[in-house]
């Protein structure tokens, strides 16, 4: 017997003016799992997350999004956050002229219980000790990696049930990437369901339970992380060293094959 999914996306379409960026995407995310969304640049991954968050006016144009059994498409972002979905946007959208601490506390803005916010703040400081050291520093003057930690910490202070992460490893040193992935796993083990958009397919599938592959606004393949890791095409285009001579031909074959849907 399977439980109802925490997030259920039914056949959504999202436009930027006349450009169809997400073209009929469906996804079920089960509670407690990490789902990775992989795909090349411009595939529409970020757009899917922004659509879930209600950040795009009048989108999705078609389809429905249900969170915990309730429709959230067409709702205000501020209300979607209050229902328990948090978003770590691509490229660390911090508040540059607030201190690191103020940034984190803004993550607790929607919460009533200030004691809990404070204890969660301490938890974030345990994950990222450097943020504790620099809590008085303006976020705009933190390094890129520190800002990324700040964005993650701030989202955790929302205390979400579902966390959407858009390329958390972007621009981080290999060591820090490892650390961040370990923390993502810890967060998940603490009960937070996660959707993880990543370029780093190996790492992402390494911690995810499920994965989907996105191309040109569609999900072209989905399955368990283990199955995707085994998949020949996935290996060739996302896991291998895609720089080889025949990758263009390979890409064309991939495009042809995509019609199987």
């Amino acid at each position, binding site marked *: 017997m399977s439980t109802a999914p925490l997030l259920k996306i039914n056949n959504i379409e999202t436009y930027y003016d006349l450009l169809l960026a997400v073209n009929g995407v469906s996804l079920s995310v089960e509670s407690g799992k990490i789902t990775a969304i992989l795909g090349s640049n411009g595939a529409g991954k970020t757009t899917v997350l922004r659509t879930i968050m209600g950040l795009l006016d009048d989108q999705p144009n078609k389809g429905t999004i249900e969170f915990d059994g309730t429709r959230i498409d067409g709702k205000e972002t501020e209300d979607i956050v209050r229902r328990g979905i948090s978003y770590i946007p691509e490229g660390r959208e911090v508040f540059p*002229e607030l201190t690191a601490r103020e940034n984190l506390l803004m993550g607790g803005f929607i919460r009533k219980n200030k004691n809990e916010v404070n204890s969660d703040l301490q938890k974030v400081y345990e994950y990222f000790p450097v943020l504790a050291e620099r809590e008085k520093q303006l976020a705009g003057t933190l390094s890129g990696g520190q800002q990324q930690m700040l964005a993650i910490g701030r989202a955790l202070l929302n205390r979400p049930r579902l966390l959407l992460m858009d390329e958390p490893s972007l621009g981080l040193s290999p060591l820090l990437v490892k650390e961040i992935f370990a923390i993502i796993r810890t967060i998940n083990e603490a009960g937070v369901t996660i959707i993880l958009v990543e370029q780093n397919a190996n790492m992402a599938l390494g911690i995810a339970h499920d994965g989907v592959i996105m191309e040109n606004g569609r999900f072209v393949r989905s399955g368990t992380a283990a199955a995707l890791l085994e998949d020949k095409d996935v290996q060739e285009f996302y896991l291998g060293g895609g720089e080889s001579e025949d990758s263009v031909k390979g890409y064309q074959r991939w495009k042809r094959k995509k019609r199987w849907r």
Partner: protein
Amino acid sequence: MFTQLIITGISIGSLYALMALAMSIIYKTSHTPNFAQGEMAMISTFVAFALQTTYQFPLGIALLGALLFSLILGVVIEFCFLRRAKNPTIVDLIVMTIGIQLIIQGIAGWKWGAEQKDFPFLDLDSQLVHFGDVVISHLNILTIGTSLVLMLLLYLFFQHTRMGTAMRATQQNEVAAKINGIRVNRIKAFTWGISSFVGAVAGLFFAPISTLDPYLMWEPLIKGFAAAVLGGMTSLGGAVLGGYLLGIIENLFGAYISLEFKSTVAFVIIVLVLWFRPSGLFAKHYQRKV
């Protein structure tokens, strides 16, 4: 003489500072140069006038009523006009605030007439205090004192309250504010309310040294604008400093160089700042995310 000029300069400068603050607060949040700021303050001052003279309320009630009115006016303007525009350009926004300015001016002219009224409610201008050969009116003292207190309260509000921090957060990154559950639209409306309130305080103190008519705040608006430009439109501290500086410079210029051209000092300052330091004298340099 010099000290005297400095002190009256600070007094008028505090009003410029308040106008500059009001404009900067809105500019930071809504990216709108608010040309209706002066008229919003003017009509709030008229409300105080009407409450006191027409409806015979005591002074305190009249002032409170006017300030409450100014708050609501700011919120209503944001809600009815600014919020309706989808992806407006800066020119759209300017045209919109000029439209609001004309509407308010029309209402004030229709309700209270275009002729100048004496503002009876603070008779402090004629009561003087002497320090050696320096003379300060009670009104000057009250103006300087009230502005300082208001600025301090604003500072504490923005820096040390949850709501104030959320307002700064919204100014710095709207998307990030939204995804943390901060209701950006409400914050904007509230910002307009606060800004309108600050402008109204300037209006209430300016009316007794000027004459109350629908054009009351035209000059303070231009001066406040100049002061805000000195502060780069985004630095509240810079706007305040700009206001005081302008008040003093203008006073000295009027006394020692040319009384006729006293009012053009503000304009010259705008031009010079745009020429040499377009981001303002005190601006900090962070790129705003769009």
